[in-house]
């Protein structure tokens, strides 16, 4: 745990102890990430192949190697509260190349699941949930698209839930089973009022 020196508040914040102490680790976190992700995050040897392969890394502060390190050390709070957790595009380039045969993308996904359990999730992700609940699509069809499809000689709507709305109740049933929609609505309301 970070040591508190007892300086005045502003100074204490500025000189905040950033050392890693053994009791910052939660070994259970490593275990649960391992079991949810069904891969071997504890075997990471920090070579950097994942970040080197990552399309997100050059344009953001997202460092997948850093997240892998946090899993190895069990730094639960640090990993789950870092907003970078949501910058992975899930392209799986890191999983293709990892020499230790870990699937880092799945490790990120498992941490997102754990974060969501603590209501840590960006609102745009929740709005995607709402969109899927409404239309069966994260990115629903729109008029621009429909016009383009018509021009290409395609149907205005693709043969998905857009064309077969009778399947929507099934999709909603699945989402409701996990209380996803209710939780999303609740959190959006909390954040945006």
């Amino acid at each position, binding site marked *: 745990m970070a040591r508190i020196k007892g300086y005045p508040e502003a100074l204490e914040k500025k000189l905040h102890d950033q050392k890693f102490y053994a009791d910052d680790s939660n070994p259970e976190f490593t275990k649960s990430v391992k079991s949810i992700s069904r891969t071997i995050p504890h*075997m990471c*040897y*920090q*070579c*950097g*192949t*994942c*970040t*080197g*392969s*990552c399309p997100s*890394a*050059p344009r953001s502060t997202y*460092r997948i*190697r*850093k997240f892998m390190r946090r899993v190895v050390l069990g730094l639960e709070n640090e990993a789950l509260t870092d907003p970078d957790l949501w910058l992975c595009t899930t392209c799986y*380039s890191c999983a293709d*190349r*990892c*020499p*230790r*045969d870990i699937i880092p993308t799945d490790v990120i996904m498992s941490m997102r699941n754990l974060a969501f359990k603590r209501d840590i999730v960006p609102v745009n992700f929740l709005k995607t949930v709402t969109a899927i609940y409404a239309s069966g699509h994260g990115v629903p069809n729109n008029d621009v698209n429909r016009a383009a499809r018509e021009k290409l000689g395609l149907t205005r709507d693709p043969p998905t839930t857009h064309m077969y709305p009778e399947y929507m109740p099934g999709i909603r049933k699945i989402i409701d089973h996990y209380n996803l929609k209710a939780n999303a609505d609740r959190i959006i309301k909390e954040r945006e009022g």
Partner: protein
Amino acid sequence: MAEKKKATTKKTPSKKEDIKKVAPVKQEVKKQAPAPTAKPKAAAAPAAVGSTTKQEARVGVFICHCGTNIAGSMDIDAVQESSKSIPHVAYVDNYKYMCSMPGQTVIHKAIKDHNLTGIVVAACTPRLHEPTFRAATKDGGLNPFRFEMANIRDQNSWVHMHDRVGSTEKAIDAIKIAVAKAALLQDLYPKSVPVEKAAMVVGAGVAGMQASLDLAAAGIKTYLVEADTSIGGRMSQLDKTFPTLDCSQCILTPKMVDVGRDENIELYTYSEVHEVEGYIGNFDVTIRKKARGVMTPKEAEAKGIVGGGCNGCGDCETACPVVKPNMFEVGMKPRKAIYINHPQVVPLIYTIDFDSCVKCGICVTACGPEKRAIDLEMKDEFIKVKIGTAILATGYDIFPIEKKEEWGYKRFENVITSLEFERLICASGPTGGHLVRPSDGQTPMRVAFVLCAGSRDNTGTGKPYCSRFCCMYSLKHAHQIIEKIPGCIPYIFYMDIRSFGKMYEEFYYRIQDEGAKFIRGRVANIIEDKATKNLHVMTDDTLLDRPIDMEVDMVVLASAVQPSADTNRTRKLFGVSCSMDGWLLEAHPKLNPCGTTTAGVFLAGVCQGPKDIPDTVASAEGAASAASIPIHKGEVELEPYFASCIEDKCAGCGMCVNLCPYSALSLVEKDGRMVMQVTEAKCKGCGTCGGFCPGGAIWMNHFTTPQIVAQIDAFLLGGEQ
């Protein structure tokens, strides 16, 4: 085993009675088997079976504490107390270290004082201390094969470290089983076989050459078999060696010349081992001498061409119209269909590549009527030699790094392997020592070295092990380009720099001081700029915590190494195992790294696992020393564990003959019928035949049916037989 024990002993008394009911049947079997030993006829065939077991067995049990290795995990007093009540046990003692001199004295003394007939030591493993305790048994006046070991450490206290009650129970079981066997042990006498005063070394790289030179210097006739046309191996392809930077060829060629000149070394280049028969001391090896199409002066003389044969003048090569890539130069230089690898080859004899030769006969004319060295109709020859011991030094190949597609080898012209770099930077190489980009012949000014290319890789495409010498040669490469190309910057992409040898870390310091840039990150992928053929090396600078896109002129992949192509075939001929990664398996990774599980066959150099040159030479000298011991001793003692045939029972069906993995069995005619006969020196006592024989006619010495049945009884019935 402990669970099984619980399953039987912890059941209700009624179940135990069931087992007892079964027991008499087993005992009948037991009584049958030793019968032939009592018959004088059978006793004559297997001599070692002759000893009687009539005297009542008196077994001494000695329990070792192994410091706290054993005593820390079980109740030694309880084990001792229980052992006293085991049938046939006449004496029980324990000691802190049974393997120590005082410990062994306890055994001697007990044998004499208590008139013991069998010894059980409950301690570590037979592999570790069987010889020790056999010697102690012998010193006490008993036949050494009257000793039996109960493993209560490796298979008990170490694995059940936290289960004191369980491990104590299991130790008692193990002792009961060992006592049951010890009570039935018989005197056995090892056989000695003479050892042929000759050795064979397979592979003439630096390991094979060093081993041959050592054996030859020790006065042993050595057959050195090499698949390539010249000796020298991988080391002759290298330019300089780390960390001393001496020229590889300069230090190697004197050895090559010595090998070529040594009277005790019979060199077979362009040859391979075709067949191996026999056993330690008496291997019969057939060498396949491939047709090289060119005769040595000696061979020419044998054919009546006096003063003829190849003198290495090279007239044939000049004349030959067929052009092929020279694989010694990793395909970067042309050669003819009749060729030598490089000017310093030993022996200096040309070779025809018959796969490419069009048999136009121009070379025959060029060679002239005096030498008449070329014979386009030459055929493979098979030569049989007899040897006592053999050393395998089959070396390594480069892992086909194009399999790791993200680095673009064979897709991008300016991505090369380290071995190609060695040839390009070498003064005798295809470019005369000028490092150039394969795409345009320009001198590269930024060179990236990719370490762990295919090593330390668990994906299944690469190799899981560390190839051990890539870090160091890449440092050397960095030094060479700094030295040869002013202003050229080497970028070394690494995960860890493993500079573990003598003066290696100092070398690392020196190269960093010379200006090499070290970037800690494994290369994720390489992208080629189509216009310039420059390469973009993409990775994460893990220390800076930023992704990198480094544009360079050339990339050198420090590719992993793997066992050479023919290793698997050769090892099977000699009966040597390999580990999961394909490297040949040593007898013990620490205490017997040159030996193998096949007596008389030894390993030298990289075929056992990646090694740099100093380690390779050391291992070769170790192998040579080990291989010379049986030869100098003149005879080897074989464990008397061989199978023997109970001729009265043998139906002569011959099914065992085909089963034997060591070709030790044969059918012979005796008293007008066929019976099986064992060549004792070849038999390893594996028990395949004994377990199979439908008539129960095969007697496995030291693992006899009565002994094994008694062990099973002791376990299932808790020693109440």
